[in-house]
């Protein structure tokens, strides 16, 4: 007997567990342990009702330890830690045991075996709780300054938002001036707002906020430090700057897809990308003309560079942008024949109204099969586009046109240096990955580094700015409290045992361990920076004299769990 007073709760999970595991037998096995004061089953342990029952058990029976045997710790560790806190129990005195993903779901063909395994796992969980200790989160003071990388509309708007929460902001832009893509755009869909005007307004707003430091022709060269307190190096305009920042926001945007030579006739006169065509429209006053000749007919080829083998994703903005461009053409050249050759039209949301309007105003839409793209024939003085139109029963059509517009999408920006410095998580498609696309859309797995805008994947400017403001909320939520709580499950060094060999310092992937000599010939000992330690445990086996323990996963706890697992289940 350890003298602990432990409560064990075994979940049915509706039937996800109890259809394969004999929950009553698991509860009975848990009761055999002399330290287990309460053991119960529950249909849904995570339900509010069961949680309040557990809370009253904790008070009534004076429980000082808890085991919940239900689903993966990924799902409900946070739920039950919060429940423990509400009951006045230290959240680290609770152990989550996974008898669903790692037991009932994997052993649906062997009910007895699944039950035996569940009993073993629960016994191990009880052993872990017996060895647990109350842990307090490490509190650090956070730096009231944020770094924003990328000075397009997303980064500019995020910088303004951050400044308005009272934080200082360092805004780093790689080009000569702020503005990014939108700073080069004329009228944008859906309402024809001029991109250059938007950027001019944002520039003014930034100019009025002295708490924003703008660095152009800049790049981030280094990042060190711990959660809430990072040191970043920035080279800008030939000078080096060092900043203390609490959080980083990456808003580096996208690159435009550049078709290969000859791709749909690209390179021939009269074959333009969407961006080039928009520039032509921006320059157009009165008559629509290309190289001095009136444009009477044009063909838009959609999905160029998107939804193919190289870039599997949809670029999201191009359908709407091309339809908007065709409406601008209808304004300046009402009799021009406009053919839209598409795979699938995705003018989602309100942009559908532009699609309808463009058809009303004479744009003709033709659909080609994924494996049968249109062919652009470039003659000396003519352009002809051929396709099999699925909307005309697959009939082959030839379209002699004055201009071909390749509706090109977004591709990830090549920026290996920044990825290296910030350790940004790059997805299969080359864009940066967030932790959770719905619930944590701007945080990354790298602590303190947030992402927003089109560097995460294709977005419209409105969507990018909304995501930039989401990053503002996230950063402010962390920094405005002034302090941050860090996970207390970190490595600790037993100084009297440590020989100062330094094996742990090289084993630590986060550089969180260093050797300190006390002078006067006394031996050096390892010291863990609790703010820098991520609790990965890499140092524990590296220590030749067992002088390092990981709080929450101590050697004592792990040995106890192994002993419990090795106990035979009598049935």
């Amino acid at each position, binding site marked *: 007997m350890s003298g602990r007073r432990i409560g064990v709760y075994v979940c049915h999970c509706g039937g996800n567990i109890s259809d394969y595991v004999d929950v009553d037998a698991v509860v009975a096995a848990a009761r055999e342990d002399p330290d287990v004061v309460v053991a119960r089953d529950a249909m849904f342990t995570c339900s509010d009702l069961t949680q309040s029952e557990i809370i009253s058990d904790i008070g009534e029976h004076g429980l000082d330890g808890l085991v919940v045997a239900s689903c993966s710790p990924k799902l409900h560790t946070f739920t039950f830690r919060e429940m423990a806190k509400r009951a006045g129990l230290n959240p680290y005195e609770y152990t989550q045991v996974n008898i669903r993903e790692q037991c009932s779901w994997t052993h649906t063909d062997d009910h007895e075996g699944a039950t035996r395994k569940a009993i073993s796992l629960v016994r191990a969980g009880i052993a872990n709780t017996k060895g647990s200790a109350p842990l307090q989160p490490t509190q650090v003071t956070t730096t009231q300054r944020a770094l924003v990388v990328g000075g397009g509309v997303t980064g500019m708007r995020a910088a303004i938002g951050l400044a308005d929460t009272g934080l200082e902001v360092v805004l780093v832009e790689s080009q000569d001036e702020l503005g990014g893509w939108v700073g080069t755009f004329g009228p944008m869909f859906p309402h024809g707002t001029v991109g250059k005007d938007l950027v001019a307004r944002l520039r003014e707003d930034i100019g009025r906020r002295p708490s924003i430091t703008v660095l152009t022709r800049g790049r981030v060269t280094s990042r060190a430090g711990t959660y809430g307190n990072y040191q970043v190096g920035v080279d800008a305009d030939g000078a080096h700057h060092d900043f203390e920042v609490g959080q980083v926001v990456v808003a580096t945007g996208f690159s435009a897809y550049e078709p290969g030579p000859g791709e749909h006739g690209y390179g021939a006169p009269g074959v333009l990308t969407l961006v080039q065509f928009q520039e032509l429209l921006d320059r157009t006053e009165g008559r629509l003309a290309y190289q001095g000749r009136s444009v009477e007919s044009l063909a838009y080829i959609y999905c160029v560079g998107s939804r193919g083998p190289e870039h599997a994703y949809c670029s999201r903005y191009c359908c709407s942008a091309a339809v908007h461009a065709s409406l601008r053409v209808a304004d300046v050249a009402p009799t021009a024949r406009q053919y839209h050759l598409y795979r699938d039209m995705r003018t989602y949301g309100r942009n559908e109204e532009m699609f309808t309007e463009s058809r*009303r105003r004479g744009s003709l*839409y033709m659909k080609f099969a994924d494996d049968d793209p249109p062919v652009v024939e470039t003659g000396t003085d003519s352009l002809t586009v*051929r396709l099999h139109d699925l909307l005309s029963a697959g*009939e082959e059509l030839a*379209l002699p046109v004055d201009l071909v517009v390749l509706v090109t999408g977004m591709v990830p920006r090549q920026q290996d240096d920044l990825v290296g410095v910030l350790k940004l998580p790059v997805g299969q498609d080359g864009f940066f990955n967030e932790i959770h696309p719905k619930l944590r859309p701007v945080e990354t797995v790298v602590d303190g580094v947030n992402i927003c805008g089109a560097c995460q994947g294709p977005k419209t400017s409105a969507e990018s700015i909304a995501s930039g403001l989401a990053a503002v909320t996230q950063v402010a939520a962390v920094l405005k409290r002034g302090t941050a709580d860090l996970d207390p499950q970190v490595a600790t060094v037993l100084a009297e045992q440590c020989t100062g060999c330094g094996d742990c310092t090289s084993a630590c992937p986060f550089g969180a361990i260093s050797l300190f000599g006390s002078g006067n010939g006394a031996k050096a000992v390892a010291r863990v920076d609790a703010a820098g330690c991520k609790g990965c445990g890499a140092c524990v086996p590296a220590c030749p004299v067992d002088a390092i323990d990981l709080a929450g996963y101590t050697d004592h706890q792990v040995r106890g769990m192994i002993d419990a697992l090795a106990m035979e289940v009598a049935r």
Partner: protein
Amino acid sequence: MTTLTPSLIGPELAALGDFDAQACMNCGICTAICPLSTDVLPRRLMRYAALGMAERVRQEEEAVFSCLLCRSCEENCPAGVHITENVRLLRRWLLEHPRRLN
């Protein structure tokens, strides 16, 4: 193969009245609902006319004149195309541009 040239019937139809088949979104409800529902009536006929494929429209002369003008298609068109009016315009165009006999 059909080449779509500037000498399309589109402008000619536009001159006759408010021809609006280009607003079609190709859903096919009109064809599903048509009591005659021939191979071409009404969606493909509207498609040929919208693209200005004069020869195709001439070939489908019988379909154009067999339409009952019942307006079932039009009542159910989600794109709001006035299909029967378009059929009337096509009839008039066919009368003014008859098929040449060899």
